[in-house]
Protein backbone atom coordinates (compact mmCIF):
# COMPACT_ATOMS: atom_id res chain seq x y z
CA UNK A 1 0.00 0.00 0.00
CA UNK A 2 1.23 3.47 -0.83
CA UNK A 3 2.18 5.53 2.16
CA UNK A 4 0.44 8.82 2.54
CA UNK A 5 2.87 11.71 2.54
CA UNK A 6 1.61 14.32 4.94
CA UNK A 7 3.76 17.41 5.15
CA UNK A 8 1.75 19.03 7.90
CA UNK A 9 -0.44 16.91 10.10
CA UNK A 10 -2.50 17.81 13.08
CA UNK A 11 -5.53 15.72 12.32
CA UNK A 12 -7.81 15.19 15.28
CA UNK A 13 -7.50 11.41 15.21
CA UNK A 14 -8.20 10.10 18.65
CA UNK A 15 -8.95 13.54 20.03
CA UNK A 16 -12.67 13.13 20.32
CA UNK A 17 -15.30 10.46 20.16
CA UNK A 18 -17.91 12.38 18.22
CA UNK A 19 -16.38 11.73 14.84
CA UNK A 20 -18.99 12.26 12.13
CA UNK A 21 -16.86 11.29 9.16
CA UNK A 22 -13.76 9.17 9.00
CA UNK A 23 -11.96 7.87 5.94
CA UNK A 24 -9.33 5.20 6.36
CA UNK A 25 -6.89 4.47 3.57
CA UNK A 26 -9.40 5.65 1.01
CA UNK A 27 -8.17 5.07 -2.53
CA UNK A 28 -9.72 5.48 -5.94
CA UNK A 29 -8.27 4.60 -9.30
CA UNK A 30 -9.64 5.48 -12.72
CA UNK A 31 -7.74 3.08 -14.92
CA UNK A 32 -4.08 3.77 -14.36
CA UNK A 33 -4.78 7.14 -12.74
CA UNK A 34 -4.80 7.14 -8.96
CA UNK A 35 -7.28 9.92 -8.19
CA UNK A 36 -7.20 9.51 -4.41
CA UNK A 37 -4.42 7.75 -2.59
CA UNK A 38 -4.67 6.33 0.92
CA UNK A 39 -6.72 9.20 2.25
CA UNK A 40 -7.20 9.46 5.99
CA UNK A 41 -9.53 12.17 7.21
CA UNK A 42 -11.60 12.82 10.29
CA UNK A 43 -14.34 15.33 10.81
CA UNK A 44 -15.93 15.95 14.18
CA UNK A 45 -19.24 17.46 15.17
CA UNK A 46 -19.16 21.25 15.28
CA UNK A 47 -16.21 21.53 12.93
CA UNK A 48 -16.06 23.46 9.68
CA UNK A 49 -13.53 21.54 7.66
CA UNK A 50 -11.97 23.06 4.56
CA UNK A 51 -10.92 20.67 1.83
CA UNK A 52 -8.58 22.41 -0.55
CA UNK A 53 -6.72 21.39 -3.62
CA UNK A 54 -5.93 22.35 -7.19
CA UNK A 55 -8.04 21.20 -10.12
CA UNK A 56 -8.01 17.43 -10.41
CA UNK A 57 -6.57 16.99 -6.93
CA UNK A 58 -9.22 14.46 -5.98
CA UNK A 59 -11.63 16.62 -3.97
CA UNK A 60 -14.78 15.81 -5.91
CA UNK A 61 -13.80 12.15 -6.14
CA UNK A 62 -13.46 12.09 -2.36
CA UNK A 63 -16.84 13.74 -1.93
CA UNK A 64 -18.32 11.30 -4.45
CA UNK A 65 -16.97 8.36 -2.44
CA UNK A 66 -18.30 9.77 0.84
CA UNK A 67 -21.75 10.11 -0.72
CA UNK A 68 -21.73 6.64 -2.24
CA UNK A 69 -21.66 7.94 -5.81
CA UNK A 70 -18.20 6.57 -6.53
CA UNK A 71 -17.00 3.17 -5.39
CA UNK A 72 -13.62 3.26 -3.63
CA UNK A 73 -10.90 0.93 -4.90
CA UNK A 74 -9.62 0.46 -1.36
CA UNK A 75 -10.11 1.75 2.15
CA UNK A 76 -13.27 2.48 4.04
CA UNK A 77 -15.53 5.32 5.01
CA UNK A 78 -17.29 5.63 8.34
CA UNK A 79 -20.23 7.93 8.76
CA UNK A 80 -21.48 8.53 12.29
CA UNK A 81 -19.27 5.69 13.48
CA UNK A 82 -20.64 3.11 11.05
CA UNK A 83 -19.01 1.75 7.95
CA UNK A 84 -20.50 2.90 4.68
CA UNK A 85 -21.56 0.02 2.47
CA UNK A 86 -24.14 -0.67 -0.20
CA UNK A 87 -27.02 -0.29 2.21
CA UNK A 88 -26.20 2.98 3.92
CA UNK A 89 -29.33 5.03 3.37
CA UNK A 90 -29.94 5.55 7.12
CA UNK A 91 -26.45 7.11 7.31
CA UNK A 92 -26.57 9.06 4.05
CA UNK A 93 -30.03 10.34 5.00
CA UNK A 94 -28.22 12.40 7.63
CA UNK A 95 -25.92 14.04 5.08
CA UNK A 96 -26.81 17.08 3.00
CA UNK A 97 -24.63 17.89 0.02
CA UNK A 98 -24.12 20.16 -2.92
CA UNK A 99 -21.87 18.29 -5.29
CA UNK A 100 -19.69 20.51 -7.48
CA UNK A 101 -22.61 22.77 -8.35
CA UNK A 102 -26.28 22.80 -7.49
CA UNK A 103 -28.31 20.84 -10.02
CA UNK A 104 -32.09 20.93 -10.04
CA UNK A 105 -34.91 20.28 -12.46
CA UNK A 106 -35.06 23.33 -14.72
CA UNK A 107 -38.79 23.07 -15.40
CA UNK A 108 -39.72 23.11 -11.72
CA UNK A 109 -39.89 26.13 -9.45
CA UNK A 110 -37.51 26.42 -6.54
CA UNK A 111 -40.26 25.32 -4.17
CA UNK A 112 -41.28 22.37 -6.37
CA UNK A 113 -37.66 21.24 -6.57
CA UNK A 114 -37.52 21.16 -2.80
CA UNK A 115 -40.92 19.47 -2.73
CA UNK A 116 -39.70 16.71 -5.08
CA UNK A 117 -36.58 16.29 -3.00
CA UNK A 118 -38.48 16.15 0.28
CA UNK A 119 -40.82 13.50 -1.17
CA UNK A 120 -37.82 11.39 -2.18
CA UNK A 121 -36.08 11.76 1.19
CA UNK A 122 -39.22 11.27 3.22
CA UNK A 123 -39.98 12.42 6.73
CA UNK A 124 -39.55 16.11 5.90
CA UNK A 125 -42.21 18.22 7.66
CA UNK A 126 -44.37 20.35 5.35
CA UNK A 127 -43.21 23.54 7.06
CA UNK A 128 -39.55 22.72 6.46
CA UNK A 129 -39.58 23.89 2.82
CA UNK A 130 -40.74 27.39 3.71
CA UNK A 131 -38.33 27.44 6.62
CA UNK A 132 -35.26 26.66 4.52
CA UNK A 133 -36.37 28.96 1.71
CA UNK A 134 -36.61 31.81 4.21
CA UNK A 135 -33.27 30.90 5.69
CA UNK A 136 -31.50 31.34 2.35
CA UNK A 137 -33.57 34.41 1.41
CA UNK A 138 -35.32 32.70 -1.48
CA UNK A 139 -38.85 32.64 -0.13
CA UNK A 140 -40.08 35.52 -2.30
CA UNK A 141 -38.81 33.88 -5.50
CA UNK A 142 -39.75 30.33 -4.56
CA UNK A 143 -42.46 30.12 -7.22
CA UNK A 144 -40.11 31.05 -10.07
CA UNK A 145 -38.78 28.36 -12.36
CA UNK A 146 -35.30 27.15 -11.48
CA UNK A 147 -33.95 27.92 -14.96
CA UNK A 148 -34.90 31.56 -14.44
CA UNK A 149 -32.74 31.79 -11.33
CA UNK A 150 -29.44 33.65 -11.22
CA UNK A 151 -26.34 31.67 -10.29
CA UNK A 152 -26.49 33.08 -6.79
CA UNK A 153 -30.11 31.99 -6.36
CA UNK A 154 -29.21 28.52 -7.62
CA UNK A 155 -26.46 28.30 -5.04
CA UNK A 156 -28.81 29.41 -2.30
CA UNK A 157 -31.39 26.85 -3.39
CA UNK A 158 -28.61 24.27 -3.23
CA UNK A 159 -27.90 25.22 0.37
CA UNK A 160 -31.63 25.14 1.13
CA UNK A 161 -31.80 21.62 -0.29
CA UNK A 162 -29.01 20.45 1.98
CA UNK A 163 -30.85 21.83 5.01
CA UNK A 164 -34.08 20.12 4.04
CA UNK A 165 -33.16 16.84 5.65
CA UNK A 166 -31.80 18.56 8.76
CA UNK A 167 -28.39 16.99 8.20
CA UNK A 168 -25.69 16.35 10.73
CA UNK A 169 -23.03 16.58 8.06
CA UNK A 170 -23.20 19.18 5.32
CA UNK A 171 -20.93 18.86 2.31
CA UNK A 172 -20.61 22.05 0.31
CA UNK A 173 -18.60 22.08 -2.88
CA UNK A 174 -17.89 25.68 -3.92
CA UNK A 175 -20.97 27.11 -2.20
CA UNK A 176 -20.15 30.71 -3.09
CA UNK A 177 -19.41 30.12 -6.74
CA UNK A 178 -21.22 32.71 -8.83
CA UNK A 179 -22.38 34.74 -5.87
CA UNK A 180 -22.01 38.50 -5.72
CA UNK A 181 -20.00 39.93 -2.78
CA UNK A 182 -23.12 40.38 -0.65
CA UNK A 183 -24.25 36.83 -1.40
CA UNK A 184 -20.78 35.49 -0.69
CA UNK A 185 -20.77 37.18 2.69
CA UNK A 186 -24.26 35.89 3.39
CA UNK A 187 -23.23 32.29 2.70
CA UNK A 188 -19.93 32.77 4.51
CA UNK A 189 -21.82 33.93 7.58
CA UNK A 190 -24.23 31.03 7.27
CA UNK A 191 -21.57 28.30 7.22
CA UNK A 192 -20.26 28.71 10.80
CA UNK A 193 -23.86 28.98 12.00
CA UNK A 194 -24.63 25.63 10.42
CA UNK A 195 -21.72 24.03 12.22
CA UNK A 196 -22.73 25.53 15.53
CA UNK A 197 -26.03 23.73 15.29
CA UNK A 198 -24.17 20.54 16.31
CA UNK A 199 -23.44 19.74 12.70
CA UNK A 200 -20.19 19.40 10.84
CA UNK A 201 -19.50 21.18 7.58
CA UNK A 202 -17.19 19.79 4.92
CA UNK A 203 -16.35 22.69 2.66
CA UNK A 204 -14.57 22.43 -0.68
CA UNK A 205 -13.64 25.85 -1.94
CA UNK A 206 -11.04 27.54 -4.04
CA UNK A 207 -11.60 30.83 -2.21
CA UNK A 208 -8.82 30.41 0.30
CA UNK A 209 -9.51 33.66 2.09
CA UNK A 210 -13.06 32.52 2.61
CA UNK A 211 -11.91 29.15 3.91
CA UNK A 212 -9.51 30.88 6.25
CA UNK A 213 -12.39 32.92 7.64
CA UNK A 214 -14.88 30.13 8.21
CA UNK A 215 -12.95 26.89 8.70
CA UNK A 216 -11.53 25.52 11.93
CA UNK A 217 -9.42 22.99 10.16
CA UNK A 218 -8.26 22.38 6.61
CA UNK A 219 -6.75 19.62 4.57
CA UNK A 220 -4.81 20.34 1.44
CA UNK A 221 -4.84 17.65 -1.21
CA UNK A 222 -2.81 17.36 -4.37
CA UNK A 223 -2.78 14.48 -6.84
CA UNK A 224 -4.91 12.48 -4.45
CA UNK A 225 -2.52 12.82 -1.53
CA UNK A 226 -3.11 14.88 1.59
CA UNK A 227 -0.28 17.38 1.96
CA UNK A 228 -1.55 19.06 5.09
CA UNK A 229 -4.26 18.42 7.62
CA UNK A 230 -4.27 20.88 10.45
CA UNK A 231 -6.06 23.77 12.08
CA UNK A 232 -5.99 26.96 10.05
CA UNK A 233 -4.19 28.70 12.89
CA UNK A 234 -1.38 26.16 12.99
CA UNK A 235 -0.96 26.18 9.25
CA UNK A 236 -0.63 29.92 8.99
CA UNK A 237 1.57 30.29 12.07
CA UNK A 238 3.76 27.47 10.93
CA UNK A 239 4.70 29.61 7.97
CA UNK A 240 5.25 32.65 10.20
CA UNK A 241 8.58 34.49 9.74
CA UNK A 242 10.31 37.41 11.37
CA UNK A 243 10.71 40.53 9.33
CA UNK A 244 13.62 42.63 10.59
CA UNK A 245 14.81 46.02 9.43
CA UNK A 246 18.28 47.18 10.46
CA UNK A 247 20.53 49.98 9.20
CA UNK A 248 23.29 47.64 8.15
CA UNK A 249 21.85 44.29 7.18
CA UNK A 250 25.05 42.44 6.17
CA UNK A 251 26.54 41.90 9.67
CA UNK A 252 23.09 41.12 11.03
CA UNK A 253 22.63 38.55 8.29
CA UNK A 254 25.92 36.81 9.16
CA UNK A 255 25.20 36.83 12.92
CA UNK A 256 21.74 35.38 12.59
CA UNK A 257 22.87 32.87 9.98
CA UNK A 258 25.34 31.42 12.46
CA UNK A 259 22.66 30.74 15.07
CA UNK A 260 21.73 27.06 15.15
CA UNK A 261 18.06 27.67 15.96
CA UNK A 262 17.50 29.88 12.91
CA UNK A 263 16.10 27.68 10.18
CA UNK A 264 16.75 30.03 7.28
CA UNK A 265 17.44 33.65 6.53
CA UNK A 266 17.16 35.73 3.40
CA UNK A 267 17.04 39.36 2.41
CA UNK A 268 14.00 40.86 0.83
CA UNK A 269 14.23 44.54 -0.17
CA UNK A 270 15.55 46.25 2.97
CA UNK A 271 14.43 43.49 5.28
CA UNK A 272 15.87 40.34 6.68
CA UNK A 273 13.36 37.54 6.57
CA UNK A 274 14.13 35.04 9.29
CA UNK A 275 12.50 31.65 9.64
CA UNK A 276 12.84 31.08 13.35
CA UNK A 277 10.85 29.18 15.96
CA UNK A 278 7.60 30.77 17.03
CA UNK A 279 7.93 33.43 19.77
CA UNK A 280 11.65 33.87 19.11
CA UNK A 281 11.43 37.55 18.22
CA UNK A 282 12.77 38.70 21.58
CA UNK A 283 15.71 36.27 21.39
CA UNK A 284 16.60 37.52 17.91
CA UNK A 285 16.38 41.09 19.12
CA UNK A 286 18.61 40.29 22.10
CA UNK A 287 21.28 38.63 19.94
CA UNK A 288 21.37 41.59 17.57
CA UNK A 289 21.54 44.06 20.47
CA UNK A 290 24.47 42.13 21.96
CA UNK A 291 26.30 42.90 18.71
CA UNK A 292 25.25 46.56 18.83
CA UNK A 293 22.81 46.11 16.02
CA UNK A 294 19.44 47.63 16.77
CA UNK A 295 16.39 46.75 14.77
CA UNK A 296 14.22 49.64 13.65
CA UNK A 297 11.47 47.17 12.83
CA UNK A 298 10.91 43.63 14.07
CA UNK A 299 7.56 42.06 13.31
CA UNK A 300 6.08 38.61 13.06
CA UNK A 301 4.94 38.26 9.46
CA UNK A 302 2.15 35.74 9.29
CA UNK A 303 1.43 34.07 6.02
CA UNK A 304 -2.00 33.67 4.55
CA UNK A 305 -3.60 30.30 3.97
CA UNK A 306 -3.21 31.08 0.30
CA UNK A 307 0.56 31.28 0.67
CA UNK A 308 0.63 27.99 2.55
CA UNK A 309 -1.58 26.45 -0.11
CA UNK A 310 0.59 27.71 -2.96
CA UNK A 311 3.73 26.62 -1.18
CA UNK A 312 2.42 23.11 -0.57
CA UNK A 313 0.88 22.62 -3.96
CA UNK A 314 3.80 24.08 -5.82
CA UNK A 315 1.92 27.09 -7.07
CA UNK A 316 -1.06 25.34 -8.61
CA UNK A 317 -4.16 27.42 -8.41
CA UNK A 318 -7.05 26.09 -6.43
CA UNK A 319 -10.25 25.17 -8.08
Amino acid at each position, binding site marked *: MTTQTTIVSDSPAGKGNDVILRTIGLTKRFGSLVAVKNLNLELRRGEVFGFLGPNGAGKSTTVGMILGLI*APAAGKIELFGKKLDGNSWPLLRRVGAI*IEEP*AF*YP*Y*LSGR*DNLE*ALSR*AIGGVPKTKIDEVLKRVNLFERAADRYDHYSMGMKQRLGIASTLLRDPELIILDEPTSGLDPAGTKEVRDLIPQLAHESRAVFLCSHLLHEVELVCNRVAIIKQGVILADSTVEKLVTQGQVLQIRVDNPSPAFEILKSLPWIKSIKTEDDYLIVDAPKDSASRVNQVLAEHNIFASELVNRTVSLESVFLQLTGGDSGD
Partner: protein
Amino acid sequence: MIRLIGAELFKLRKRTMTRVLLYVLIGIIVVLYFLLLAISNVNLPNVGQHMENIPNLLGLPLALPFALYILSSFGSVLVIILLASVIGSEYNWRTIRTAVVSSESRFKLLTAKLISVTILVLIGMLIGLAAGFIMSLITTAIGGYKFDFSFATGSYLWDQFVQFWRTFYILMPYAVLGFLFAIVGRSAMPGISLGIGFFFLESIITTFMSLAGGWIARIPEYLLLANVRAISSLTELPQSFGAGMGAMGIKLPGETHAFITIAIYSIAFLSIAFYLFRKRDVTG
Protein backbone atom coordinates in the same frame (compact mmCIF):
# COMPACT_ATOMS: atom_id res chain seq x y z
CA MET B 1 -40.10 2.98 -2.29
CA ILE B 2 -43.59 4.52 -2.15
CA ARG B 3 -42.14 7.95 -1.44
CA LEU B 4 -39.67 7.61 -4.32
CA ILE B 5 -42.55 6.74 -6.66
CA GLY B 6 -44.41 9.75 -5.27
CA ALA B 7 -41.42 11.97 -6.00
CA GLU B 8 -41.09 10.61 -9.54
CA LEU B 9 -44.79 11.05 -10.25
CA PHE B 10 -44.61 14.59 -8.89
CA LYS B 11 -41.75 15.43 -11.28
CA LEU B 12 -43.46 13.75 -14.24
CA ARG B 13 -46.78 15.44 -13.52
CA LYS B 14 -45.14 18.85 -13.48
CA ARG B 15 -43.12 18.22 -16.63
CA THR B 16 -44.40 19.80 -19.83
CA MET B 17 -43.08 16.94 -21.94
CA THR B 18 -45.44 14.48 -20.25
CA ARG B 19 -48.44 16.55 -21.26
CA VAL B 20 -47.06 17.17 -24.76
CA LEU B 21 -46.69 13.42 -25.34
CA LEU B 22 -50.28 12.90 -24.24
CA TYR B 23 -51.49 15.69 -26.55
CA VAL B 24 -49.54 14.11 -29.41
CA LEU B 25 -51.21 10.75 -28.75
CA ILE B 26 -54.67 12.31 -28.67
CA GLY B 27 -53.79 14.35 -31.77
CA ILE B 28 -52.76 11.22 -33.66
CA ILE B 29 -56.04 9.50 -32.76
CA VAL B 30 -58.12 12.54 -33.78
CA VAL B 31 -56.24 13.00 -37.06
CA LEU B 32 -56.47 9.31 -37.96
CA TYR B 33 -60.19 9.21 -37.32
CA PHE B 34 -60.86 12.31 -39.40
CA LEU B 35 -58.56 11.00 -42.13
CA LEU B 36 -60.42 7.71 -42.25
CA LEU B 37 -63.74 9.54 -42.26
CA ALA B 38 -62.59 11.67 -45.18
CA ILE B 39 -61.31 8.64 -47.09
CA SER B 40 -64.52 6.70 -46.43
CA ASN B 41 -66.51 9.50 -48.09
CA VAL B 42 -64.42 9.42 -51.26
CA ASN B 43 -65.07 6.94 -53.99
CA LEU B 44 -61.72 5.85 -55.28
CA PRO B 45 -61.34 3.29 -58.03
CA ASN B 46 -59.65 -0.04 -57.32
CA VAL B 47 -59.31 0.54 -53.62
CA GLY B 48 -59.89 -3.05 -52.64
CA GLN B 49 -60.81 -4.52 -49.32
CA HIS B 50 -59.02 -1.96 -47.16
CA MET B 51 -61.39 0.81 -48.20
CA GLU B 52 -64.42 -1.34 -47.68
CA ASN B 53 -63.42 -1.83 -44.07
CA ILE B 54 -62.96 1.84 -43.25
CA PRO B 55 -66.59 2.52 -42.26
CA ASN B 56 -66.35 -0.48 -39.97
CA LEU B 57 -63.23 0.95 -38.33
CA LEU B 58 -65.04 4.19 -37.66
CA GLY B 59 -67.96 2.39 -36.09
CA LEU B 60 -68.41 1.97 -32.35
CA PRO B 61 -67.67 -1.79 -32.07
CA LEU B 62 -64.17 -1.27 -33.43
CA ALA B 63 -63.51 1.98 -31.55
CA LEU B 64 -61.60 0.32 -28.72
CA PRO B 65 -59.67 -2.24 -30.81
CA PHE B 66 -58.73 0.49 -33.28
CA ALA B 67 -57.60 2.82 -30.49
CA LEU B 68 -55.51 0.01 -29.01
CA TYR B 69 -54.01 -0.62 -32.44
CA ILE B 70 -53.02 3.06 -32.66
CA LEU B 71 -51.59 2.87 -29.14
CA SER B 72 -49.53 -0.21 -29.95
CA SER B 73 -47.98 1.33 -33.04
CA PHE B 74 -47.56 5.06 -32.31
CA GLY B 75 -47.57 4.51 -28.55
CA SER B 76 -44.25 2.66 -28.67
CA VAL B 77 -42.47 5.75 -29.95
CA LEU B 78 -44.07 7.96 -27.31
CA VAL B 79 -43.27 5.55 -24.50
CA ILE B 80 -39.64 5.26 -25.67
CA ILE B 81 -39.37 9.05 -25.48
CA LEU B 82 -40.98 9.17 -22.04
CA LEU B 83 -38.99 6.38 -20.43
CA ALA B 84 -35.64 7.30 -21.97
CA SER B 85 -36.04 10.92 -20.93
CA VAL B 86 -37.07 10.04 -17.37
CA ILE B 87 -33.61 8.64 -16.66
CA GLY B 88 -31.60 10.34 -19.43
CA SER B 89 -32.63 13.86 -18.46
CA GLU B 90 -31.29 13.24 -14.97
CA TYR B 91 -27.87 12.94 -16.57
CA ASN B 92 -28.44 15.91 -18.89
CA TRP B 93 -29.48 18.18 -16.05
CA ARG B 94 -26.80 16.70 -13.77
CA THR B 95 -29.52 15.96 -11.22
CA ILE B 96 -28.57 12.29 -11.22
CA ARG B 97 -26.19 12.75 -8.30
CA THR B 98 -28.83 14.49 -6.20
CA ALA B 99 -31.35 11.82 -7.20
CA VAL B 100 -29.01 9.00 -6.19
CA VAL B 101 -27.96 10.67 -2.95
CA SER B 102 -31.62 11.30 -2.06
CA SER B 103 -32.73 7.73 -2.72
CA GLU B 104 -32.66 4.71 -0.48
CA SER B 105 -30.76 2.81 -3.13
CA ARG B 106 -30.03 2.98 -6.84
CA PHE B 107 -32.16 -0.11 -7.37
CA LYS B 108 -35.13 1.54 -5.71
CA LEU B 109 -34.57 4.77 -7.62
CA LEU B 110 -34.62 2.98 -10.97
CA THR B 111 -37.57 0.82 -9.94
CA ALA B 112 -39.47 3.92 -8.82
CA LYS B 113 -38.84 5.53 -12.20
CA LEU B 114 -40.11 2.46 -14.03
CA ILE B 115 -43.20 2.16 -11.86
CA SER B 116 -44.06 5.85 -12.16
CA VAL B 117 -43.72 5.71 -15.96
CA THR B 118 -45.82 2.53 -16.00
CA ILE B 119 -48.56 4.32 -14.08
CA LEU B 120 -48.45 7.24 -16.51
CA VAL B 121 -48.44 4.95 -19.53
CA LEU B 122 -51.51 3.12 -18.24
CA ILE B 123 -53.25 6.44 -17.60
CA GLY B 124 -52.21 7.60 -21.09
CA MET B 125 -53.60 4.41 -22.61
CA LEU B 126 -56.92 4.93 -20.85
CA ILE B 127 -57.06 8.51 -22.08
CA GLY B 128 -56.16 7.26 -25.58
CA LEU B 129 -59.00 4.73 -25.42
CA ALA B 130 -61.39 7.43 -24.27
CA ALA B 131 -60.22 9.69 -27.10
CA GLY B 132 -60.72 6.87 -29.59
CA PHE B 133 -64.21 6.18 -28.31
CA ILE B 134 -65.18 9.85 -28.40
CA MET B 135 -63.81 10.15 -31.92
CA SER B 136 -65.79 7.08 -32.92
CA LEU B 137 -68.95 8.71 -31.57
CA ILE B 138 -68.15 11.86 -33.52
CA THR B 139 -67.36 10.07 -36.78
CA THR B 140 -70.42 7.86 -36.35
CA ALA B 141 -72.55 10.98 -36.01
CA ILE B 142 -70.88 12.79 -38.89
CA GLY B 143 -70.88 9.74 -41.15
CA GLY B 144 -74.51 9.07 -40.41
CA TYR B 145 -73.80 5.58 -39.10
CA LYS B 146 -76.03 3.84 -36.63
CA PHE B 147 -75.59 4.34 -32.87
CA ASP B 148 -75.89 0.79 -31.67
CA PHE B 149 -74.31 -0.32 -28.40
CA SER B 150 -75.52 -3.90 -28.52
CA PHE B 151 -71.95 -5.01 -29.22
CA ALA B 152 -70.86 -4.06 -25.68
CA THR B 153 -71.42 -7.47 -24.14
CA GLY B 154 -69.44 -8.88 -21.23
CA SER B 155 -67.38 -10.98 -23.57
CA TYR B 156 -66.61 -7.95 -25.76
CA LEU B 157 -65.51 -5.89 -22.76
CA TRP B 158 -63.38 -8.76 -21.45
CA ASP B 159 -61.69 -9.07 -24.85
CA GLN B 160 -60.90 -5.36 -24.82
CA PHE B 161 -59.61 -5.61 -21.26
CA VAL B 162 -57.26 -8.44 -22.25
CA GLN B 163 -56.19 -6.62 -25.39
CA PHE B 164 -55.49 -3.49 -23.31
CA TRP B 165 -52.94 -5.43 -21.25
CA ARG B 166 -51.54 -7.11 -24.35
CA THR B 167 -50.99 -3.65 -25.86
CA PHE B 168 -49.26 -2.52 -22.71
CA TYR B 169 -47.12 -5.65 -22.79
CA ILE B 170 -45.88 -5.01 -26.33
CA LEU B 171 -45.05 -1.40 -25.53
CA MET B 172 -42.56 -2.59 -22.94
CA PRO B 173 -39.56 -4.03 -24.82
CA TYR B 174 -38.85 -1.00 -27.01
CA ALA B 175 -39.42 1.38 -24.11
CA VAL B 176 -37.07 -0.61 -21.90
CA LEU B 177 -34.51 -0.68 -24.72
CA GLY B 178 -34.66 3.13 -24.87
CA PHE B 179 -34.29 3.19 -21.09
CA LEU B 180 -31.21 0.97 -21.36
CA PHE B 181 -29.62 3.12 -24.08
CA ALA B 182 -30.24 6.25 -21.97
CA ILE B 183 -28.39 4.65 -19.05
CA VAL B 184 -25.56 3.38 -21.24
CA GLY B 185 -25.20 6.77 -22.96
CA ARG B 186 -25.86 8.73 -19.74
CA SER B 187 -28.21 11.00 -21.68
CA ALA B 188 -31.78 11.08 -22.94
CA MET B 189 -30.70 11.47 -26.55
CA PRO B 190 -29.09 8.03 -27.06
CA GLY B 191 -32.11 6.45 -25.41
CA ILE B 192 -34.61 8.23 -27.61
CA SER B 193 -32.69 8.10 -30.88
CA LEU B 194 -31.40 4.54 -30.58
CA GLY B 195 -34.68 3.29 -29.11
CA ILE B 196 -36.75 4.75 -31.93
CA GLY B 197 -34.02 3.97 -34.47
CA PHE B 198 -34.05 0.33 -33.47
CA PHE B 199 -37.86 0.32 -33.60
CA PHE B 200 -37.82 1.34 -37.28
CA LEU B 201 -34.57 -0.33 -38.30
CA GLU B 202 -35.72 -3.69 -37.00
CA SER B 203 -38.79 -3.43 -39.21
CA ILE B 204 -36.59 -2.99 -42.31
CA ILE B 205 -34.16 -5.75 -41.30
CA THR B 206 -37.01 -8.11 -40.48
CA THR B 207 -38.59 -7.49 -43.89
CA PHE B 208 -35.33 -8.23 -45.71
CA MET B 209 -34.76 -11.36 -43.67
CA SER B 210 -38.25 -12.58 -44.46
CA LEU B 211 -37.65 -11.96 -48.14
CA ALA B 212 -34.35 -13.85 -48.03
CA GLY B 213 -36.11 -17.11 -47.27
CA GLY B 214 -34.56 -20.26 -45.82
CA TRP B 215 -33.20 -20.23 -42.29
CA ILE B 216 -32.64 -16.47 -42.45
CA ALA B 217 -36.38 -15.99 -42.78
CA ARG B 218 -36.83 -17.75 -39.45
CA ILE B 219 -34.58 -15.35 -37.53
CA PRO B 220 -37.30 -12.67 -37.18
CA GLU B 221 -39.29 -15.13 -35.10
CA TYR B 222 -36.68 -14.54 -32.40
CA LEU B 223 -36.47 -10.80 -32.85
CA LEU B 224 -38.83 -8.33 -31.24
CA LEU B 225 -40.91 -7.09 -34.13
CA ALA B 226 -42.46 -10.36 -35.26
CA ASN B 227 -43.37 -11.25 -31.68
CA VAL B 228 -44.83 -7.82 -31.01
CA ARG B 229 -46.88 -8.13 -34.19
CA ALA B 230 -47.99 -11.60 -33.20
CA ILE B 231 -49.53 -10.11 -30.06
CA SER B 232 -50.91 -7.10 -31.95
CA SER B 233 -52.62 -9.37 -34.45
CA LEU B 234 -54.78 -10.76 -31.66
CA THR B 235 -56.80 -7.55 -31.81
CA GLU B 236 -60.26 -7.87 -33.33
CA LEU B 237 -59.66 -5.53 -36.20
CA PRO B 238 -60.74 -6.43 -39.73
CA GLN B 239 -58.30 -8.98 -41.13
CA SER B 240 -56.85 -6.56 -43.66
CA PHE B 241 -55.91 -4.12 -40.87
CA GLY B 242 -54.80 -6.68 -38.35
CA ALA B 243 -52.65 -8.38 -40.91
CA GLY B 244 -51.54 -4.97 -42.12
CA MET B 245 -49.09 -4.91 -39.23
CA GLY B 246 -47.44 -7.97 -40.60
CA ALA B 247 -48.27 -7.45 -44.20
CA MET B 248 -44.64 -7.45 -45.21
CA GLY B 249 -44.60 -11.22 -45.49
CA ILE B 250 -43.31 -11.80 -42.00
CA LYS B 251 -44.27 -15.14 -40.56
CA LEU B 252 -45.74 -14.39 -37.16
CA PRO B 253 -44.89 -16.79 -34.33
CA GLY B 254 -47.47 -18.27 -31.99
CA GLU B 255 -48.95 -16.38 -29.08
CA THR B 256 -47.05 -18.23 -26.34
CA HIS B 257 -43.77 -17.99 -28.24
CA ALA B 258 -44.34 -14.27 -28.65
CA PHE B 259 -45.13 -13.68 -24.99
CA ILE B 260 -42.07 -15.58 -23.83
CA THR B 261 -39.73 -13.95 -26.35
CA ILE B 262 -40.91 -10.45 -25.43
CA ALA B 263 -40.53 -11.27 -21.73
CA ILE B 264 -36.99 -12.54 -22.27
CA TYR B 265 -36.00 -9.40 -24.19
CA SER B 266 -37.61 -7.09 -21.63
CA ILE B 267 -36.01 -8.86 -18.67
CA ALA B 268 -32.62 -8.90 -20.40
CA PHE B 269 -32.77 -5.17 -21.21
CA LEU B 270 -33.89 -4.35 -17.68
CA SER B 271 -31.23 -6.53 -16.08
CA ILE B 272 -28.45 -4.85 -18.05
CA ALA B 273 -29.89 -1.41 -17.26
CA PHE B 274 -30.07 -2.15 -13.53
CA TYR B 275 -26.64 -3.76 -13.49
CA LEU B 276 -24.99 -0.79 -15.20
CA PHE B 277 -26.82 1.75 -13.09
CA ARG B 278 -25.85 0.05 -9.85
CA LYS B 279 -22.29 -0.73 -10.85
CA ARG B 280 -21.09 2.47 -12.45
CA ASP B 281 -19.76 5.51 -10.67
CA VAL B 282 -21.99 8.54 -10.84
CA THR B 283 -19.69 11.35 -11.93
CA GLY B 284 -19.86 14.59 -13.90
